[in-house]
């Protein structure tokens, strides 16, 4: 049996831990991970150009490398899909990481009943202060909370791992945002399936 061809994974930094966990658990030694800063999500319109630059750098380093972009649409309005198509690289399906962790089909089925939900993943729970609280200016201007979150009713923590400490952190985040709390274990969802297909 021949060894699988080397695969370079170009991922959002918010997925680094999860991707490394999957690589380790499955022994996918032909995969190597490179990440872009997770805070690109604060300006999603900058993601396609950042991905294009990174793809060019990877190709300059290892011209024969296959590249798999581990981003969903992530608020780029289809632009990332167009960029990846132009570059001839694959990317993940789905609108964002909440959806592919939950499973894109299941997430879409639930959308109508959950449009008042704000989601956290393991990453966002760990980095709630940096990526939500401070990024939204709530540390400096707590009065903005209701302008930003007033229409949400609940926070759903989409858990990739069974971790009681993260569960408590997510619940505390819900309290800070004034939202009801729910936890849903998702595991790695469609991310695991997409990587397994390259395994």
């Amino acid at each position, binding site marked *: 049996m021949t060894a699988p061809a080397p695969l370079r994974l170009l991922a959002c930094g918010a997925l680094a831990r999860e991707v490394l966990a999957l690589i380790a658990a499955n022994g996918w030694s032909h995969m190597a991970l490179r990440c872009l800063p997770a805070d690109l999500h604060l300006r999603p319109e900058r993601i396609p150009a950042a991905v294009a630059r990174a793809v060019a750098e990877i190709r300059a380093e290892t011209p024969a490398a296959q590249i798999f972009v581990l981003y969903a649409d992530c*608020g*780029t*309005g289809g632009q990332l899909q167009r960029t990846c198509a132009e570059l001839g690289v694959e990317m993940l399906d789905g609108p964002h990481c909440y959806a592919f962790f939950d499973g894109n089909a299941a997430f*879409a089925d639930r*959308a109508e009943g959950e*449009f008042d939900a704000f989601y956290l993943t393991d990453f966002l729970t760990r980095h709630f202060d940096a990526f939500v609280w401070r990024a939204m200016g709530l540390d400096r201007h707590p009065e903005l909370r209701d302008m930003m979150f007033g*229409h949400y009713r609940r926070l759903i923590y989409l858990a990739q791992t069974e971790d009681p400490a993260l569960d408590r952190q997510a619940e505390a985040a819900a309290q800070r945002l004034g939202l009801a709390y729910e936890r849903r274990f998702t595991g790695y969802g469609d991310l695991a399936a997409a990587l397994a297909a390259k395994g």
Partner: protein
Amino acid sequence: MADEDDDIILSELDDEELVQQMHDDLYDGLKDEIEEAVGILLERGWTPYEVLTQALVSGMTIVGNDFRDGILFVPEVLLAANAMKAGMSILKPLLAETGAPRMGKMVIGTVKGDIHDIGKNLVAMMMEGAGFEIVDLGINNPVETYLEAIEREGADILGMSALLTTTMPYMKVVIDTMKEQGLRDKYIVLVGGAPLNEEFGRAIGADAYCRDAAVAVETAKSLIARRHNQTV
């Protein structure tokens, strides 16, 4: 040592300096200072319309441009919007009394299944600042609510907003229903929201996609003017 800015006394500035200071204060989201400065300009004999356009709208345009260019982020824009809103609440009743120009009427709302309204609120505020009468339907609007509102209000423009890729297709449902009911040509339809683009706007049959509040105002003005030219 006190910051030099702490010593600025708004009433001691001349008009030009005061307007410049208002732009700075809007940029910094200083609501109280904006309210005070609006009062000063009115006392000096400025018309409410002049205060609105030269001090508030032009200041907020700078904020909008810096948001577009990645210099400002959402929290700063919201603070600036709050400050502008405070100034506008002083001017609004006066504008009605002093016969400020009316540009047209817009019904605006976020589409069904979507609760995001920060961008929609900014558009509504800037449109109001530009002389449009606004009927804001809020969030999560089904097609029936939009259609009932545009007919009831005799609107010129329908504005729809969506933040989610999963909800933006609903705009087409609204436009298609307008076509089915023979209403489409009666109204200008503008769409906006982070995941949209011009191509999407064209594909669903909107008159225009507006990338931000400033573009929405300019687009609305130009489409209203074109419509007037066609009917004269």
